[in-house]
């Protein structure tokens, strides 16, 4: 529902980063979206396409890495991916763990194409 706003924030960051690389063309932006981030990947793809269409960013690719919820067991320190809402440690069976992944809403990288050096 708020994916247009999220897409706009991504694009603002891309524009700001791009200024630091004059002459280079940004061809892709990589983002990480967590399972608990309340952002839907398909809606974000669609929003991104809508706001870049017929702009200078029309060919910019959005590369989304989907991040599942991960927990760290407080008893044995095992790190595990949560499946079917099961927070029980698969290694030692303890059910006290802390969330260490799944809330991501990050810009990870830009893919840049430098202008060809003139010979």
């Amino acid at each position, binding site marked *: 529902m*708020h994916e247009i706003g999220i897409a706009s*924030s991504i694009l*603002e960051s891309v524009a700001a980063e791009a200024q630091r690389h004059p002459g280079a063309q940004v061809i892709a932006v990589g983002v990480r979206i967590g399972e*608990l981030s309340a952002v839907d990947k398909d809606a974000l793809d669609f929003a991104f396409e809508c706001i870049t269409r017929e702009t200078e960013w029309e060919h910019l690719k959005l590369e989304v890495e989907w991040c599942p919820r991960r927990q760290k067991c407080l008893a044995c320190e095992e790190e595990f991916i949560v499946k079917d*809402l099961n*927070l029980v440690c698969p290694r030692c069976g303890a059910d006290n763990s802390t969330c260490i992944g799944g809330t991501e809403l990050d*810009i990870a990288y830009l893919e*840049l194409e*430098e202008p060809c050096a003139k010979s």
Partner: protein
Amino acid sequence: MREVVEKKVLSENDRLAAELRQRYRDQNILCVNFISSPGSGKTALLEKTLAALAPTQAVAVLTGDIQTDNDARRLSRYGFPVRQIVTGGTCHLDARMIDRHLGEMNFRGPGLLLVENVGNLVCPSSYDLGEAAKIVLLSVTEGEDKPLKYPGIFHRATLMILTKTDLLPHVDFQPGFALENARKIHPEIDYIALSSRTGEGFDKWLTWLDALQRKFQQTAAAINS
């Protein structure tokens, strides 16, 4: 060529929220952010809360809606400053809106800032407002599986309030099942069941809020010292 960026998508909002959080600590303002679906009883809960708070206490309310100032009008009857944030289509409040309206309101601590977010269980969960706690409301006329359908907000909320408990005899809602679902997402989430209409359970909510305020003041004093 790959350029590593590593920043939050909402870094601008997060930066402003961190500024607000610092201001709240400096001025001793406890800010809580109420989030729920439309119609879960956020405004009714706030009305009853304002009625219970001593008029000597500094309290301010910011209430967000896509359109109308109906909620601000309802909430302004209790003698505390209230401001309506009309988002004009935006489905959540962000830190910039809070900063602007708080500035115009000229509210100074020590005190309590109650923020009623736009009725929506999805988008408000992404936007940090610098609050000390997010509080999620779920009413007994909704489904017990809402925490599973909207895990983002139940994961981030410190407290879940079950509202409209006076209607329990008339609906099939099972509070225990709803709580079980919420704790599957967030095992440590606090829980209070109440009715803003009859006042049942309301003392527990006021005690919780009071305890949070004390804890906030202690933490703020420790950080600022």
